[in-house]
C-alpha cells in the first residue's frame, strides 16, 4: 500500500501535450494512454481511505497536486476532440465562444486578490463543489454525444475518462479536507431537471461549455493545491 504516485505497480505515464501536433493524432494517443490510467486513478482514489492508516497532510496534498497536474495535461485535448465532432463553427481552428456559459456551472475565473485571500477550507470547498458539478455535467454531455454522435468512440471514451478523473480528484480533495478538519459537503444535484428538452444546438453548446470549464477548473485546482503545498508541505 502506498500513498505517493510512482511507486508500486501502478505507474502513471507522463504524457506531454505538443501544441504542434495534428488534432487527429491526439485523441487516439489520449485514448491509448487513458486506458491503463483509469484503474490507476481508481486505486489512487482508494488509497487515502484505507481503514486504520493515518494519512499525513503533506502526502495527501502532494498526491492531490500530482493528480491535478496529470489531469491538466489532457484537458485541452478533450475540448479539441469535442469540438471536432460538432462540426463547424465549433470545429474551426481557434474556435472560442466565451459568451456561452451555463448557470449551473460556476466559472473558475475569480479576482486574484479574492482568490489569494481564500481560507484553506473555503478554497478546497470551492474546488470540490466545482468538480462535483463537472462530474454530473460530463455525464450529461456523454449522454448527449452518445445520441448526437453515436459513432464517436474516441470522444465518448475521453468524456468517460474525464468524468472518472473529476471524481478521483474530488475524492483526493475530500481526503485533504478530512485531514484539515473541514467538513465535506453532501453531494448536490446541480443539474436538476434541466437537461430534458434542449435542442441539438443547445446540447452542442452545452458540451463545449462543460469541457471548457473542466479545463479551466483543472488549471485552477493546480493553483489552489500549489498554494496549499507551499503552506503545508516542507
Amino acid at each position, binding site marked *: 500500500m502506498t500513498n505517493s504516485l510512482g511507486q508500486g505497480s501502478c505507474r502513471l505515464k507522463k504524457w506531454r501535450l505538443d501544441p504542434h501536433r495534428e488534432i487527429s493524432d491526439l485523441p487516439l494517443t489520449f485514448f491509448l494512454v487513458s486506458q491503463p490510467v483509469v484503474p490507476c486513478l481508481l486505486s489512487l482514489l482508494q488509497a487515502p481511505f484505507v481503514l486504520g492508516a493515518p494519512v499525513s497532510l503533506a502526502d495527501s496534498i502532494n498526491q492531490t497536486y500530482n493528480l491535478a497536474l496529470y489531469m491538466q495535461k489532457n484537458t485541452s485535448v478533450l475540448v479539441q476532440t469535442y469540438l471536432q*465532432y*460538432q*462540426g*463547424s*463553427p*465549433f*470545429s*474551426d481552428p481557434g474556435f472560442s*465562444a*466565451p*459568451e*456561452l*456559459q*451555463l*448557470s*449551473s*456551472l460556476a466559472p473558475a475565473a475569480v479576482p486574484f486578490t479574492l482568490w489569494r485571500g481564500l481560507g484553506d477550507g473555503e478554497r478546497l470547498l470551492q474546488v470540490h463543489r466545482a468538480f462535483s458539478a463537472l462530474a454530473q455535467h460530463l455525464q450529461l454531455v456523454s449522454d448527449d454525444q452518445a445520441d*448526437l*454522435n*453515436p*459513432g464517436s468512440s474516441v470522444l465518448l471514451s475521453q468524456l468517460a475518462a474525464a468524468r472518472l478523473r473529476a471524481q478521483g480528484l474530488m475524492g483526493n480533495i475530500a481526503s485533504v479536507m478530512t485531514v484539515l478538519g473541514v467538513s465535506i459537503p453532501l453531494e448536490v444535484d*446541480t*443539474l*436538476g*431537471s*434541466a*437537461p430534458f*428538452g*434542449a*435542442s*441539438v*444546438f*443547445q446540447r*452542442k*453548446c*452545452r458540451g463545449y*461549455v462543460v469541457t471548457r470549464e473542466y479545463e479551466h477548473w483543472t488549471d485552477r485546482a493546480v493553483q489552489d493545491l500549489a498554494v496549499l503545498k507551499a503552506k503545508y508541505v516542507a
Partner: protein
Amino acid sequence: MLRAAGGGLRLGAALPTARTMLALALLAFGALRAGSGSYLAVIAPQDPTLLIGSSLHATCSVSVSGGDTPTAEGLYWTLNGRRLAPELSQVLNATTLGLALANLNGSKQQSGDNLVCHARDGSILAGSCLYVGLPPEKPVNISCWSKNMKDLTCRWFPGTQGETFLHTNYTLKYKLRWYGQDNTCQEYHTVGPYSCHIPKDLALFTPYEIWVEATNRLGSARSEVVTLDILDVVQCSTGQGVASGKRPSLKGINSPNSSPVTTDPPPDVHVSRVGGLEDQLSVHWNSPPALKDFLFQAKYQIRYRVEDSVEWKVVDDVSNQTSCRLAGLKPGTVYFVQVRCNPFGIYGSKKAGIWSEWSHPTAASTPRSERQGSSGACEPRGGEPSSMPVRRELKQFLGWLKKHSYCPNLSFRLYDQWRAWMQKSHKTRNQHRTRGSCPRADGARREVLPGDKL
C-alpha cells in the same frame, strides 16, 4: 435560447407557449447564457429535418433584455462556420432577421449542420441544427450462416446509394415462416458495420424469414425477405475460440463486393514429401471438431499452385478422408496448398452447407529431378512407377524379396515386363508388388507375366 448575463428573462410576445415553458425551465436550472451583449435570441425552426435539394426559411428573433433596445440590424447568419451571403437574409421587422436557403446539400456531419445567428460582434446568439439527407435505401444482399446450428449470423449491404447523410439505424428481423411473431436481432456489428448475430432460440428443419429494416429521420426501407433453414447454411468450423458475439478473424469484411464472410477452415494442414518421390506431396489435416457433435460429414477441397503462379489447381473429390496425395507435380518446385471443408449430410440430409474459408497456404517443395508433371488428382498410394527413384525403390524391394522369399530369379526385367503388360491392360496401377511366378508359389498368378523367364 440564450440568456444575457445578469439580466432577467423576458421573451418576445410572438413566441409560442412551448418555447416559453422551455425558456423558463432553462432559466431555472442551468440555462445557457450569452455573456456579451444583452440580447436573447431564438431561431425557428429548431432541428428541422429536410430532403436534399429542398429549401428552408428561418428566422432569428431577438428580444429585449435589460435596458437595451434589441435590433435585428447587424446580425448575420453562418452555416457550418461560413458566413452566408447577405442577399440570402433579409430584415423582416425590427427584431427579426430572416433567411432563405434553397437547394440544400446533404448534412456535413451526422450531428446536423450548424445554422447560427450571430450578433454584430460575432458572438453566438442562437443556433439550430439542420438535418438534410435522403431516406434510406432498401438493404440488399442478405447472407447468413450458422457456425454451430444453434446461432445465426447475418450480413447485408446498405443499398446502392449508400450515403444518406443522416444516421441510419438498421434492424434485422426474423420469424418462422408459417407462424409466430417477428423477432429482432440484438447483437449488432459482430462482423462489420452491417451485421447481426442471433445467439440462440432458433429452430432447425424449418424455414425462417429474415429481413432488414433501415430507418432514419426521413423515412424507412425494408429489404427483400430471405427464406432459409438453419441447416442449409451451416458452415464448417473448428468450433474453437469463436464464442457467440465474439468476432472471428475474417478477411474481406470491408469490401462490399467480396464473397460472404466465412469461418475457420480445417485445422492443422500439413504438407510433406512422399519419401523420395519427386512428383508427389502428401497433404494431411484434421477434421473439424464439430463433426462428431452434429452428425455431419465433411467433404473437402484442396487447391494448390506453384509458388510463382496465380493459377490454382483444384482437387474436388476428396470426399471425407483427411489426407490426400497430390501427384503429377513438378520436381524441385515449391507448392502452396490450401484446404477447405463443407459440411453435408447433416442429420442425414443430402444437402451441403457452406464452404469454409481456405486454410492458410502451407508450403512444401518436391524433391529435385528433371521429370515433368501434369494433372492434379488425388492418387491412391502408388503413383507413376516409371521414374528413377521408384526404380531405385523397386530394386531395393526386389533385393529384399530375393533374400526373404523363395524366388531366386526375380529381376528387374520381370518388372519391366510387368509394366508393359500393365499398360496394355486397363487395370488400375495399384499393384507395385511384382508377384512373380515363383516356382514354389501357388501358381495361381501365372497369367500375370506372359512369356516370363525364370
